């Protein structure tokens, strides 16, 4: 046990860095020195970059396998992904937290009061939340999983409340918090049921137990309902039907930089949690090809789970897209778009281990970059000191803020899946994964949804670039900080440049998502060829 601990601890190096940084940032935030307070985002960035650097050094093959993880190499991709997009998210928040207060202090209107500043806390929570998401990669049992998810969630509730100065932040926070708490209870109950059915909290054991059930008389109803509840509970994190209803309000109400955070970090965490849970359960709808080219359908896993995911995917993308059509608020529209993209991402979950997880993570990367680009462009602008929200604010943006207008257009093009932006490749790879799982119907649904999504993404591109300026948009100015601008440009360029290394990224995602080989247990009988029980697919997929 001790032997197993040490590699596990080593694997936690990035989180440790973040934790230390979080503590440091929280303390530094109280400093009277303005420049120290101003340096907080950059300290945060440094920590994140350091954690990226720590990943390849610590997350080696041996360590990962010694840690007895379900998906041993997952962290190698997910952690840098989180930290990398995290850097951009930090940049885009520079200058937003405590802005009024800092301005007042700088003008000497009020004295500095450590009790009223929140910047330190904000970045500390930021780091803790990212850290929680990272920790998910190291999860090997449900307890860890639960704690990590909570570590992701709790700070975000506070970030929504304190991140900005708008009146709507509190409303967003209260909605986010209460509904989040409810969803937590839901998946917690699901954990309990899963535990009850399998008798273990360890992923590997759960997997084995479920495999045994499956090979026997079929998976427990209790387990199925447990998994369903877990999925539903986590749907809140990934803004999927039926738990997505909060998203438009919260995204709209939260400060833009926090919205960007919500759109990526909890979503990544939610998907990672789902990937882990579903890896335990196994993946449905496999098609394997033997040496003779014969297709063997694998109807391994509980039909209900597959069916529910299927339904959730279609409803999520559809409701997201048609909801976005009606919006006049950009952030609200992006919230719906976030919902829709979760729908696409669930395709990856359904497609499963053959190519689905790698597609999912690749798409998360793409989504992170492109959605951050759009939020950053929004965060870089303001109107009379308020963040801009409606399309009317963006009309004719090109004339006064050409770069941001272009970034919005680029991110819209990427989000809609227009080649050659990164979003297109993400989508292609997701579709390929869905094909691998024989989910042709889902691909058609996603394709039709993409077409529908053109209706509103086009607006996001056309309004800033083409529409004549309105009275409202004449008042739009850039925020004092240049960093959101830089973040937007970096993300925008990223959507264009990343496709050129898409092959490398996909490969990295693929390598990171290979699951641990099944530990052969006595209870598992040799399945006859043809219809094979689920877990076998896991071994086969790693070929």
């Amino acid at each position, binding site marked *: 046990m001790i032997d197993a601990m040490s590699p596990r601890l080593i694997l936690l190096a990035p989180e440790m860095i973040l934790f230390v940084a979080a503590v440091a940032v929280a303390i530094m935030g109280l400093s009277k020195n303005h420049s120290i307070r101003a340096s907080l985002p950059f300290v945060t960035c440094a920590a994140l970059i350091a954690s990226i650097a720590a990943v390849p050094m610590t997350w080696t093959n041996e360590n990962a396998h010694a840690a007895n993880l379900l998906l041993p190499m997952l962290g190698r991709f997910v952690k840098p992904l989180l930290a990398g997009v995290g850097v951009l998210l930090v940049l885009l928040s520079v200058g937003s937290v405590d802005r009024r207060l800092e301005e007042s202090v700088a003008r000497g209107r009020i004295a500095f009061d450590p009790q009223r500043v929140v910047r330190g806390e904000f970045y500390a929570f930021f780091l803790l939340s990212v850290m929680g998401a990272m920790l998910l990669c190291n999860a090997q049992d449900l307890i860890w999983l639960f704690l990590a998810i909570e570590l992701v969630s709790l700070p975000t509730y506070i970030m929504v409340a304190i991140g900005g100065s708008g009146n709507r932040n509190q409303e967003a926070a*209260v909605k986010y918090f209460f509904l989040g708490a409810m969803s937590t209870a839901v998946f917690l109950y699901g954990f309990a049921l899963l535990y009850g059915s399998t008798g273990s909290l360890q992923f590997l054991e759960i997997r084995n137990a479920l495999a045994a059930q499956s090979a026997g008389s079929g998976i427990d109803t209790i387990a199925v*309902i447990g998994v*369903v509840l877990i999925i*539903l509970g986590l749907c809140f994190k990934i803004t999927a039907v*039926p738990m997505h209803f909060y998203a438009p*309000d919260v995204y709209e109400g939260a400060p833009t930089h926090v919205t960007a955070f919500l759109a990526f970090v909890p979503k990544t965490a939610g998907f990672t949690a789902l990937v882990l849970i579903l890896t335990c359960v196994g993946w449905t709808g496999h098609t394997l090809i033997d040496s003779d080219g014969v297709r063997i359908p694998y109807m391994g896993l509980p039909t209900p789970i597959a069916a529910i995911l299927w339904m959730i995917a279609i409803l999520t993308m559809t409701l997201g897209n048609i909801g976005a059509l009606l919006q006049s608020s950009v952030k609200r529209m992006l919230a719906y778009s976030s919902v829709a993209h979760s729908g696409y991402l669930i395709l990856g979950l359904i497609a499963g281990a053959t190519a689905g997880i790698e597609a999912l993570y690749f798409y998360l990367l793409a989504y992170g970059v492109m959605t951050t680009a759009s939020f950053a462009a929004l965060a870089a602008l303001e109107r009379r000191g308020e963040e801009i929200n409606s399309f009317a604010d963006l009309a004719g943006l090109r004339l006064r803020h050409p770069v941001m207008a272009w970034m919005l257009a680029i991110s819209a093009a990427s989000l809609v899946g227009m080649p050659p932006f990164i979003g297109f490749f993400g989508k292609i790879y997701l579709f390929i994964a869905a094909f691998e799982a024989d989910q042709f119907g889902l691909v058609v649904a996603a394709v039709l949804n993409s077409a529908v999504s053109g209706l509103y993404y086009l607006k996001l591109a056309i309004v800033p670039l083409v529409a004549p300026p309105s009275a409202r948009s004449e008042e739009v100015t850039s925020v004092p900080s240049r960093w959101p601008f830089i973040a937007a440009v970096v993300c925008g360029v990223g959507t264009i440049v990343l496709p050129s290394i898409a092959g490398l990224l996909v490969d990295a995602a693929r390598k990171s998502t290979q699951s641990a080989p099944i530990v052969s247990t006595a209870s598992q009988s040799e399945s006859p060829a043809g219809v094979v029980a689920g877990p076998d697919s896991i071994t086969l997929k790693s070929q």
Partner: protein
Amino acid sequence: MIPTGSIPQAVIAPELSWIGLALLLPLLAAVGCALCCALRVKGKAAAILTIVALAASFGIILKAYSSYTGPVQVPIFQWLTFQWGTGTFQSFTANCALYIDTLTLYWMLFVTGLGTLITIYASEYMEGECGAGYSRFFFGICIFLFSMGALVMGDNLIMLYLGWEGVGLASYLLIGYDYSRPSAVAAAKKAFIMNRIGDLGLAFGIFMLWANYGTVQYSELFAAMNKGGQSSVDWDVSVIPFLLMLGAFGKSAQIPLFTWLPDAMEGPTPVSALIHAATMVTAGVYLIARMYPFFELHPQALATVAWVGGLTALLAATIGMAQYDIKRVFAYSTISQLGYMFLGLGVGTTFGACYHTLTHAFFKALLFLTAGAIMHGFAGQLDLRKLSGLRHIPGWRIVSWTMLVGCLWLSAFPYTAAFFSKDAILLQALTSVRADFRFLGWLGLFTAALTAYYTFRVWFRVCAGPTHFEPGSEEHHEPTDHHSDGGHDAKATVGAAKSHGAFHPHAPRWAINGVLLILAVGAVVVGVPAYEHVFAHKENWAQQMIAGSSAYQGAGLPGEHSAEPSENHPTVLGMDAHTGLTVVGCTASIGGILIAWYLHLHSRKSADQLRAALLRRWWIRWVPICMENKWYVDEIYHVCFRLPMWLGGQILNFGDRHFLDGVLVDGLAKIPIAVGKVFRPLYGGALQGYAVTMAGGIALVLAWVTWIWLRGFN
């Protein structure tokens, strides 16, 4: 001597490619004219260029004729040729190559010859346009001559089609020469479109030929015909002549596509003479003569041609009787004469048809050119009621007398060339075993009388009688050259001319008079083959020419090589066919002339009285009304075709914009929005509302799982 029994097989003779210069020269001249246009040359360079090129073409054709030994195929360059396999139907060959046989030479001789003459005429006629549209005019002429050459000399049907459409283009450009007149533009458009309809038939005929015989080259097609014309596949071969004749009807202005030709008189008169009388409109005759073996395959096809020709001849003659515009009278006479040619083709005498084409080319060109001279001199005046006694005006005598020659020829006055050519056609019809052909023959004779009447109606009105005239409204040939820009100047001069009060017709000069004389002589000379035959009993040149070509089957003189037994020797009115026809034909011609003399020279009032008398009687009133209104064919076409299509276009346009685009497409885009609105209440904004919705969702999912569970999963 005749017939040879089969179509002579062409030999490939690349060494004769110099004949291609007859095509190339007009084309080069066209380029030159275009350059003149572009450089805004003010002089007559374009005319000189054109005349030289055409004369050279004529020379080349003469040389080719003199050195002619048998049908040849002259490859020039590969045009529309490709293959995708080695089988019969796996290649398509339509090269730019020439097919020279006697029919080709026969046609090309008068096309280039008349072309040259008329261009000389035009060089003077159009001189008022120097610097404005002069070069453009000759550009059109060159394009026409090139296209006509391609049409006649092409080695395959695609070349023919190229020429076919090319002459249509030239016709379009030249009819619409004076483009500021809307009527000219409309006429040009009409000509092109009516021709297009026919062209489509021709195109499908070509497709059908290709589909059946795997080739569109004459030599191969004729070789197939010599073997019996059996197609290698089971397409309906008999459709081919009907499709081809549609093209011919369009180009040669036969029923139902004849209405464009009278309108085409909007073009300058040399154009009317060259294109719309002498050469282009005979392309239909050429096509049928060229493809005659295919028509022979299907008796009903030839009968259709005959009927269409006969009826067109009559119809056009009746209309021609009631027109007052000289050029229009001549235009209808052209249609009528073309009807004779088709009748000839239909009843089986290609010789008659082709010979009539030749004679007609001369006398009709002559007539048009005289009309043009009148128009030229009298400021566009063409109303035969407003001109009289021209032959007494100094400088107009040549015009008047050459016009008389043309009129006599057109009336088929006994022992003129046209008399013989028409005789050949009618004789064949009257001696036919088919009763309907004999009927058409009598119809043709009746039409001949009408023709004589309306022809001399013109001459007696215009050239004979007391001298008086009213100038026309156009005055674009003032010696002072004001043609720099636009119509304003022209209008101003018209006003000035009218205010002067005194109008002096300016008589034609050498180019016009010379050409008229040459043409008059030519009209006489083309009678030589017939005279040779009738008087010297020598071999008929025209017949020889036809017999050596693909139209050999109808090349014999009617009655001479009749395949029928002698006891069935045909008779006309109880006399020998020849004699009977001569008698009846002479009677018809002279009778028509006499009536015209009475009504239009002796007592001109009686013509009006006759008309008034006819109009008074309700049961006969429709005849003059319909004749004067061209039997309302244009109106009928307008109501039957143009109007429905225009309405259809409007409806479709409206439907396209408001239904297909407005309802279906935009409606499709609105569906997701409408669905989105359905879900809108779910995002009400109340915290507990969301909680309820979420809980409801969870409950639904759990219920669903339970349902699946009850059904038994795994």
